[in-house]
């Protein structure tokens, strides 16, 4: 079985892995590199717990052919904090009790980051839209939406009314 070398950047560091034909990025992150933050929830693209950023765009690692990441920049929840300092989104999730079992949290944070990096002043509807691909079975979503709006306002963008 031939393996293909793939080099990419993960949370700012260079990574090199050998992947099997057809192997998805989620498997490469978890088993190849050891970044366990992205999770397996469905393998179908419905639940969003494997959401990562690739070149700044939200993508589903379980549906991403690993070798398409060659030369690209991948971001996961492990790369959110700045050394010991949490990202405003992480602080906001803690303040608003926006996690219970925590399984959806990594994906939620990445979807939220993709939103705020592009739109620093989202409306409530914008936030709901941004996490519409991420399922949470515990919180009922409201604490998560509140946390994201709070993080937006603390970063200097105005959380717009709505």
């Amino acid at each position, binding site marked *: 079985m031939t393996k293909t070398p793939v080099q990419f950047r993960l949370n700012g560091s260079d990574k090199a892995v050998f992947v099997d034909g057809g192997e998805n990025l989620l498997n490469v992150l978890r088993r190849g590199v050891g970044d366990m933050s992205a*999770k397996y929830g469905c393998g179908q693209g419905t639940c969003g717990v494997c959401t990562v950023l690739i070149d700044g765009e939200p993508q589903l690692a379980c549906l991403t052919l690993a070798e398409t990441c060659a030369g690209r920049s991948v971001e*996961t929840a492990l790369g959110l904090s700045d050394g010991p300092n949490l990202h405003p989104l992480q602080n906001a999730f803690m303040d608003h009790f926006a996690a219970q079992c*925590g399984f959806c949290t990594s994906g939620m944070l990445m979807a939220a980051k993709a939103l705020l990096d592009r739109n620093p002043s989202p409306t409530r509807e914008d936030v709901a839209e941004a996490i519409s691909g991420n399922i*949470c*079975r515990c919180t009922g979503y409201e604490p998560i939406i509140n946390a994201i709006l709070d993080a937006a306002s603390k970063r200097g963008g105005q959380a717009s009314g709505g």
Partner: protein
Amino acid sequence: MLEFRKEFFKDERDDNLNEVGQPRQRQDMLGHVTGRTRYFDDHAFEGLLHLKVLRSPHSHARLRSIDTAAAERAPGVKRVIRAADVPVNKNTLLSLINFGKDDEPLLAVDKVRYKGEPILAVVAESEAAAYDALAKVRVEYDPLPAVFDVEEALKPGAPVVNETYPANTFEYHEKYNHQKLRFGDVERAFAQADFVVEERYQMSPIEHAPTETNGSIAAPETNDRFVVHSSTQALFFSLGTAAKLLDVPSNRLHYIGGTVGGGFGGKVDSLTEPLSILGAMLTGRPVRYVLNREEEMLYGCPRGAERHYIKDGVMRDGRIVARKVTSYFDAGAYTRLSSYGAVKCAAHIPGPYTIPNVCADVYCVYTNRTPATAMRGFGITGVDFSLEVQMDKLAHKVGMDPMEFRILNAYRDGDMKAHRREAHNCALIECVQVAAEKANWPISDTYRRMNSLTGGGGERAVIPATATDENGRIGGGRPATGTTSRPPAPPPRVPLPAAAQPRAPQPQPAMSQPRVAPPPPAPPPPAAQPVKPAATPQHGATRFSSVFGTRRR
């Protein structure tokens, strides 16, 4: 964000608690937001193998033949695990507390009883290799008639789902095929009631759909032990179940868990650990068994469907004088926790209300559906929903406001409950009053002045003469469906002689004692014959025997 209504019951309480009642951050929150919380699958193992299960496509069928030759030769396959490889291939989850008979194989032997039942397992170098090998297994089935409805399953001639319980009902203490609750005489009360309201409530199985599917990784460890990372909500349940099925002392199993990606009750059945451990034992390597999403949704145990028939007699003035409930729990093909769910249901009838005549029959029934399990208050949420909808219907019938109707019928401290326990620490009235206030729902002054501490006890503390019956005796044939058959003619309504009267618990002195939790309600004490001592050695602990009535008080 939390509001405390401390004006209620303030005489019974010291307000000297520093942690309870204060908002505190979760101890795992930092791990969650930094992506560092470790779930079972977040552990690396060199040489990890992957286990996938062949599942029955039929709801009910004999297994005529199984041919795994091609699968065993398939690339990447390390081992095929068959029923014969399982040291103790029959169990029931609650054997851990000596409740119920072993009825479920880990891998099917000669018959499959629900669609999705595991037949064998393939352990391979990758999930893809395991799927490929599964596709090469040849199984010949002889489909059998199947039953999917609880009342159909109880009819004479219905297919026998689970031979351990040939009448398709769980057997409680080898005495009755249902939980019985009898208090007073409902038939006489119905005859005297101004209105009788009879309804049927039905709920479907409900899938927990956690974002993390069920799974475990088992690996050989030092000291001839196996370390097991599991998604289980019930570490000791899972450890005990695996120890029994695999016939190993429990100290050879090192379970690590505690972080569950959403349980809700769906991760207590030990769906994956026994096979992943067995796989590790047979291959000498770490083995991972995770349900994929389709397996989780279709074959991961759901909350069992329930059906409740509720018949109430109510007076024009709003008092409920009789409540008769017949409940059917759809356990699916195997018992698991449904037997206990039915006990809990019986414990919740007739709801938090003082009703002088109560009769309930609660059945745990087998059908050819996915075995049911716990989910969020299992055993009680279905019956409570049904009871509360019924309360609204009754209120409408007598023309009363539904909040006031509940306050009128609510139990108060000192009342005798149908389970022959005196009610203590009642608070329904206060809850309804606060809920009405929050909802801006006006209730009259009369009802706003009522409270749980006043009006209970006295005549309401008496255990009435009770009509009993022997319906559903084990060995007495199948029960009637729909409603229970009529009990024998009731005795006259006079107090029984003191010697024969069941001992009524002494009413507690009002209000001067600190509040303590009432003892859990138990089914009525068994009739006069002694409990048959168990013939076989017990597997599990006896400390829950008071809950299940196996110990005389």
